[in-house]
């Protein structure tokens, strides 16, 4: 992390101005907790780069609902490749290294439309590396394609299946549709991985437990695994384990902070700061989110994984509305 801080300090002029103002000397060794964080909103207000612009191969944007400013994340070849590599690595710890047939609860037009290329596209693209026979469950009008999905289910009925999508999309266009028509899909051997935030579902009073239960009702899926992550740190996501906690990987870390930014104790709710080793082309290795959460423990989760594990409580009150995935409905 210290090396990353030095790297961004030397290569991103805005970042170095911030550190100078904070009187932070990146040339001396600091503890992890002392490394400054960049508020996520800054990625909306400035174009922050730590490489030459000509090296940028991809610009990722956060939710693009009209009227809202979007975060712009600039990726060079190395950072983009690392994101995919790390995402696959983290996912494999939960779904195994074998490539599974994959059902994506979204429309393939997300990838075709350059304007939609955002967190949603990146997530789909990243996760599809871990699957084969990638099938999209929704057509361009966001309607569930029963024929296609049933054919997919029949074809792979004796295999484990990877199902991927954004939390709100799955709920709105997959679960609600199935519940309405009363159709059952045979996805009992599926592992559902989803992320993108709970804001819209919380508005409908749907929490993680309800989500799991209801999904199981309509398609028999037993393993449902949420993940937490930010567009500013794509790749190094935090996956929900069998015990229901989000886990840091060896590529990431999390610190909860009080209102005065001091570090919270275990089980103490605070503001979420995220760290990732991946961002090289932009200064996003240590960011201050607008989410609240709490650390539940370290190295002693009943799922057996090491590292910090935690839960997220949602946005801090009144935070500027930040969409997590460019949700179709809004």
């Amino acid at each position, binding site marked *: 992390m210290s090396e990353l801080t030095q790297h961004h300090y030397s290569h991103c002029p805005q970042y170095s101005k911030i550190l100078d103002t904070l009187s932070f000397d990146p040339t001396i060794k600091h503890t992890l907790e002392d490394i400054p964080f960049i*508020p996520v909103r800054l990625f909306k207000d400035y174009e922050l780069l730590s490489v030459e612009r000509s090296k940028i191969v991809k610009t990722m944007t956060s939710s693009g609902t009209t009227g809202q400013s979007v975060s712009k994340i600039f990726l060079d070849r190395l950072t983009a490749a690392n994101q995919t590599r790390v995402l696959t690595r983290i996912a494999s710890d939960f779904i195994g290294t074998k490539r599974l047939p994959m059902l994506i609860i979204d429309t393939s037009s997300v990838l075709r439309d350059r304007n939609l290329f955002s967190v949603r596209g990146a997530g789909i693209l990243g996760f599809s590396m871990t699957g084969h026979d990638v099938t999209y469950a929704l057509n361009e009008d966001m309607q569930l394609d029963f024929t296609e999905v049933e054919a997919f289910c029949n074809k792979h009925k004796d295999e484990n299946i990877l199902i991927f999508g954004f939390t709100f999309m799955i709920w709105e266009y997959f679960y609600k549709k199935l519940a309405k028509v009363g159709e059952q899909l045979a996805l009992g051997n599926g592992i559902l991985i989803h992320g993108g935030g709970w804001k819209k579902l919380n508005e409908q009073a749907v929490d993680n437990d309800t989500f799991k239960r209801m999904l199981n009702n309509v398609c028999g899926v037993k393993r449902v695994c949420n993940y937490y992550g930010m567009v500013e740190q794509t790749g190094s996501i935090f996956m929900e384990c069998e015990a229901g906690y989000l886990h840091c990987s060896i590529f990431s870390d999390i610190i909860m902070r009080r*209102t*005065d930014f001091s570090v919270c104790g275990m089980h103490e709710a605070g503001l979420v700061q995220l760290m990732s080793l991946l961002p090289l082309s932009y200064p996003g290795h240590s960011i201050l989110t607008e989410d609240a959460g709490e650390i539940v423990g370290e190295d002693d989760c009943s799922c057996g994984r090491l590292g910090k594990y935690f839960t997220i409580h949602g946005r801090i*009150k009144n935070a500027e509305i930040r969409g997590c995935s460019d949700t179709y409905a809004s």
Partner: protein
Amino acid sequence: MIPMRLKDNVTYLVGDKTTLSKPLVPYEESLCEFLYELSSTLFASKEAAAYPDIIAFAFWCRKANIAKLKADFGDRRTRLGLGLVFHITPSNVPVNFAFSFAFGLLSGNANIVRVPSKPFPQTDIICDTIDRLFSYDRFSEIKATTAFVRYEQNDEITSSFCANCNARIIWGGDVTIRNVRNIPMPVRGVEIVFSDRYSFCVIDSPSVIKLDETELNTLAERFYNDTYVMDQNACSSPHLIVWQGEEKELAKERFWMAVSRAVTEKYQLETLNAVDKYTLLCHNAIDIDDITSFKEHGNHLYRITIDSLPDNMDELRGNCGYFYEYDTDVISDIAHVINTRYQTMTYFGVDKTYLLDFVVKNRLTGIDRIVPVGNALDINVIWDGYDIVKSLSRIIDVK
């Protein structure tokens, strides 16, 4: 008249749509008496006691103050209110609507007051109290000429109120004001706008160093009231502190330590506001070249020292305890940044006539108020450079 189909979108908290327009002489006794009664009723109310801003309003309209205003008004000419005043009050300051109403009332007018559409408990407490006073016969005149309305922003409804008013008062940001200005009113209609303003504070360093502990704490408290009480959101809350005189660093150290103590004791910083302040700090670090230092006394107090004042100084605004500081030996140094946006200059240890000279001699287009630290938020009939009561009444010239 409000268009029929929109009638249900307007809630009358007090009064109804038959607001009579019968002007009176400014400070006419019955008007003053109504405000005295309102003051004492609010003071006696258990509900109101929980809201310092309601109490401040009650304190303002107490007998002694209104009588003093009346005496100060001392206009030998005969005046009458203009008729009907329509008020559009600010959405972010809960009791401002009550002051706006009182100004309209004292100038002898009938009033339709649009209260903030955001539901503040203060709005209901004050409106309910007024409504109860209206049950007395002696206030039936005022009752017939008063209405408090609430509606979500809607140009058609606003137009219907503007169509018949003799004056309108608009409190709000630049966007609101531009928007309302496009809505026609009668040709003789008078318009008073209270737009977004910028305020700052001048402190004399030796005067701070001289203070004993108690005096220093009092100063800190007064500064706290000017700033933190409204999260620095009020137009008259200072964002910039100008230091003059010898030994500035020592004075700052004393002053801010005392402020920090007061803040720690009384102020509850919301996490979101802490994030906002930190985000603004990052913005400033990137955008301002002349930051000489950044000091924080925990997240509740941020101080940015700048070397030279940029022309757009009035766009540098902090909230919830975020201050810019500038050192100077002569106040006229800052004259070049003052524009029409500047409203209040609070001062400590500086002679007020010296400050008045600064405004007049430099022929500035801004600064309408020069008041001691601690009085920044004291709203009055003279505000933003207007004598509101005079502006809302007409002279009957007799020869």
